[in-house]
């Protein structure tokens, strides 16, 4: 399989700089949108090469189908189904075809029959996000939530460069109306956008690098029992939060400077006291998409407890599969679905079993940490090897591991739960002096980290 080059180096900075310059200088809204569209396609081209044609074709065909849906009412449903089929067909081909071929090959190998070969497929970067944007828009137009936009607006909605690689999945109903106002940028947007970008870079280059390093070391460690498994998963969880929320901050910051507000993705997720609550705070643009376009259409919680549990399991399994064509992701989704079902069951049938909030907080973080190992492992064998330490005979407590575990517990759930991060951000928002100090510190920390030669890895969610 060909690997896309995901470096966001000189070339993209160059195109972004050109685009922003054009954006600020051109004399009309239409030209500004055109500038953004050209920059967006140029950036996608630098990353995906010829596959930029796929982006254009999906967008154009989708646009035509939705236009037809509005013109010919008798074809509405057919057009919607066609749009969904087109998008998920493309997603299936690029992302899942080889996975399913591999599974068939395994089955045929067991029965002695020959399997078919996998295809050498280059995956367009951000295809999952492109598809979810497209499907969401088609359904919203079908439901009458938004009128069909102009072709240019729609192309820009799908290809808009701050969000195309890894979201946040912003609804067309929120995005497209903003295009009429993109010429007016309050200076405060420039300030807060730049601050968001700085915060994102700090999370990515400093925080994610530190916890990523711990994860790298712990995942191959030999002894430590359940404490090792927890610490490894917790470090990966904190790494992933810093990595993904860092990316989101950068994307939202860039977009805010351009005058377009993108959806929020995180709300102190490790402060959650249940897994259901976690999904209302983690990758919110995806979880709300799944809620609105999958879980609720399946029936949501409207048809009794068994059906609710079934819907939850389907939604979370597909959520896992959305992240990647691998059994590790499927199991991760199923595990979350099962625990959410158990929470639902307990809440409705056994309410007296409700534990104190702090215990629920820690248990939730512990569960999340264990399941992050599934998410992070390249295959089931690697995940099993690391998770296998859980059943090891107790060994003398490793003081460093204990310290790291306590640190993750403090930095993850406890500080989030008690609102420390939120209060700090609020105070920074209100006070220039504190903002000056924190921002200076972050710039220096980033510079030191870069000087140390830390390799800045690609953002994890670019793979999805």
């Amino acid at each position, binding site marked *: 399989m060909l690997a896309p080059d995901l470096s966001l180096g000189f070339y993209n900075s160059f195109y972004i700089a050109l685009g922003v310059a054009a954006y600020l200088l051109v004399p009309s809204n239409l030209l500004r949108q055109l500038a953004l569209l050209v920059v967006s396609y140029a950036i996608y*081209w630098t990353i995906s090469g010829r596959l930029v044609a796929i982006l254009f074709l999906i967008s154009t065909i989708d646009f035509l189908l939705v236009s037809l849906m509005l013109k010919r009412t008798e074809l509405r449903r057919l057009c919607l189904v066609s749009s969904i089929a087109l998008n998920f067909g493309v997603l299936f081909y690029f992302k899942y075809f080889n996975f399913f071929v591999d599974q068939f090959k395994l089955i045929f190998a067991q029965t002695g029959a020959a399997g078919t070969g996998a295809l050498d497929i280059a995956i367009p970067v951000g295809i999952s996000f492109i598809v979810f944007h497209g499907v969401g828009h088609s359904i919203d137009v079908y439901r009458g939530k938004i009128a069909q936009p102009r072709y240019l607006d729609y192309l820009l909605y799908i290809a808009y460069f701050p969000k195309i690689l890894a979201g946040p999945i912003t609804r067309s109903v929120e995005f497209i109306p903003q295009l009429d106002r993109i010429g007016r940028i309050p200076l405060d947007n420039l300030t807060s956008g730049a601050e968001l970008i700085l915060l994102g870079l700090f999370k990515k280059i400093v925080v994610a690098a530190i916890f990523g390093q711990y994860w790298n070391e712990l995942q191959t460690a030999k002894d430590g029992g359940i404490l090792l498994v927890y610490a490894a998963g917790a470090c990966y969880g904190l790494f992933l939060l810093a990595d993904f929320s860092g990316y989101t901050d950068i994307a939202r910051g860039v977009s805010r400077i351009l005058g377009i507000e993108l959806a929020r993705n995180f709300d102190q997720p490790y402060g959650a006291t249940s897994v259901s609550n976690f999904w209302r705070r983690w990758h919110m643009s995806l979880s709300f998409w799944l809620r609105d376009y999958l879980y609720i259409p399946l029936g949501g919680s409207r048809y009794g407890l068994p059906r609710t549990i079934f819907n939850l399991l389907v939604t979370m399994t597909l959520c896992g599969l959305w992240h990647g064509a691998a059994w590790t992701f499927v199991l991760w989704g199923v595990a979350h679905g099962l625990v959410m079902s158990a929470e639902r069951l307990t809440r409705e049938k056994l309410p007296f079993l409700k534990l104190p909030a702090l215990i629920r907080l820690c248990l939730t973080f512990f569960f999340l940490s264990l399941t992050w190992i599934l998410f992070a492992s390249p295959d089931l064998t690697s995940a099993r090897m690391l998770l296998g330490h859980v059943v090891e005979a107790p060994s003398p407590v490793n003081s460093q591991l204990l310290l790291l575990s306590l640190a993750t517990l403090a930095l993850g759930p406890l500080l989030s739960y008690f609102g420390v991060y939120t209060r700090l951000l609020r105070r920074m928002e209100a006070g220039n002096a504190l903002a000056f100090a924190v921002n200076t510190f972050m710039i220096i920390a980033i510079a030191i980290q870069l000087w140390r030669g830390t390799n800045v890895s690609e953002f994890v969610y670019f793979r999805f």
Partner: protein
Amino acid sequence: MSANLSTSASSPRRLLVRVLLPIVAACALIAGVNIGLGALGLKLRDSCWGKCYPEYDVVYSRAVEARNKGKRVIAFIGDSRIEWGIDPEAVQAALERQNVRDVEVFNLAIPGRNVRTMLTRLNEAGFHPDMLVVGYSHLSFYWSKNYVTEQPHHLSWWTSDLTRIRSFVQRKIVVMPYALSELQNFLRTGVSPAGGSWLDEVTLSPRGQARVHYKMPQDEAVAFQKNAYKGMYSVAMTDDMIAETNASFLKDMSVQRAHGARVLLLKMPLSAWALDLERANERASLADLAGYLKVPFADGNEVPGAVEMESFDGLHLAPPAATIFSRWVAENLVLPNLK
């Protein structure tokens, strides 16, 4: 009406205090620490060494090991033209045929016009081979990059390396032919400027020669490189840039020479189209620089038949030609200068 920035009374102050001043304060602090350490004669080491170049560092550690065992070490440094085109085994075999047996030859070149990076690294690591053969190219100096992170390596890069910034501005903004050559490459080959997919995986021999194959047909490979180099040479190379380059060469090489390394300059052979692209002053400057540094040199294009040497893209020698050329280098450049 162009886009306008609307402001409230507090907006400019917020921007100043929250964004601009932190940048200035952080830069001032970093520069202060850097200048202070420099004044004290202390130098911040490049901590990328040993981490950022894993494959190349393995070869480097073999060279260090050989040196520690008391062997004489001959190291080649330079860009991909050296990395692909010098076969250390062939050089060593040629020397052994002349009864020179206590020598170990390594190719420490790193692709990406990296002579400056390599020299700095060798100097910082305190590694001084007995003979250092430097692959010569002007591009190596005013346009070198870090192979892995593409980040400059010193805190002072933004104060000391203004040439890099100037050339970047020239290439990207003033000199549009460079951008156009990228576009042309994409239209011809489908390879985006971010690149990465035009070569098969590079494998390094134990002594550091890269064995590489293009994924594209030969005519496309030639056209691809021709466009890229047209872009690079579209930058005006001024006299002061050449002078700065020579001074940098002298400064970095003087450290090696002070520690007893015999420094030689080598220019790899180029095919006709690449020679045409090179400006006359650059062709002449190898001899000038060698005279300036007082070091022996060899121009690969003076080897009989050099222009016709087998090359997939006109810039890098193919493996059979690399072996032939390496033998020539051993007999005509290395051997006569070996103490």
